[in-house]
């Protein structure tokens, strides 16, 4: 593996340039503290609502027709 690593090495100047470029790019794509906090809060808003699994099943196209989850009157006039 050492020989292979040697093959991957490139000049120190280019190495530094790549480091700087990646560091600046990373700052752009990272979530801000505010975004992280909003995301955290949203988790509990959804979780406290109907429950995550309910939403997940709905989102995945779970067929409710196979379950008797609605009262009969919902279908009475269909």
């Amino acid at each position, binding site marked *: *593996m050492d020989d*292979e*690593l040697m*093959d*991957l*090495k*490139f*000049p120190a100047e*280019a*190495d530094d*340039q*790549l480091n*700087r*470029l*990646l*560091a*600046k*790019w*990373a700052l*752009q*794509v*990272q*979530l801000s503290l505010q*975004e*992280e906090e909003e*995301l*955290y809060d*949203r*988790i*509990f808003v*959804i*979780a406290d609502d109907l*429950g*995550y*699994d309910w939403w997940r099943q709905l989102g*995945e196209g779970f067929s409710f027709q196979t379950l008797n989850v609605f009262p009969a009157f919902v279908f009475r006039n269909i």
Partner: protein
Amino acid sequence: MRKDLFHDLYVTYSRQVYSYLLGRTGGSKDVGADLLQDVFMRIWNRMEALERIPEDQRIYWIFSVASNRVKDYYRKSSNQRHAEEQLRDRNKGGGGPTEDLSQLLSGRERYRELESAIGALPEELRCILLMKVVGGMNSSRIGEALEMPAGTVRYKISQARALLAGRLGLSETKLAATERSNSNG
């Protein structure tokens, strides 16, 4: 009590998991954030199971949840190949290796080139590189998350960096040269 543990997990792992999701899905911030929310909702719904897992093994479990969420994402949304084709198409218009190095860090165009080059990396290399660069994880930590020896992680990071440098015209490494000659037939 459970919420406190969940909060600790979120503080410790959200950035790391986000970088993993970003790497797996190609670098879109919006997609990464949506998936991150989903991953932590799944974790919240499985806290009982997580509490039974020894602390030093939790990182792998958390990244397994993230990995499963990515699989669902690929299954449900436009498939992975389609996304990768789009990224490659975007990359086709990028600057070549003859570009003037003095302009390397200037302008948004350069960022777009970098983004395209990152998007065009093989998924595993992209993921590991972003876990380091965006997630701030060291090789050992990445290895724990992905169940991979730290030495292998280091090698893959080097591979990813060499490919990026080649694509951005920073250097002509043997690996990039080999890849270029292969792609030219």
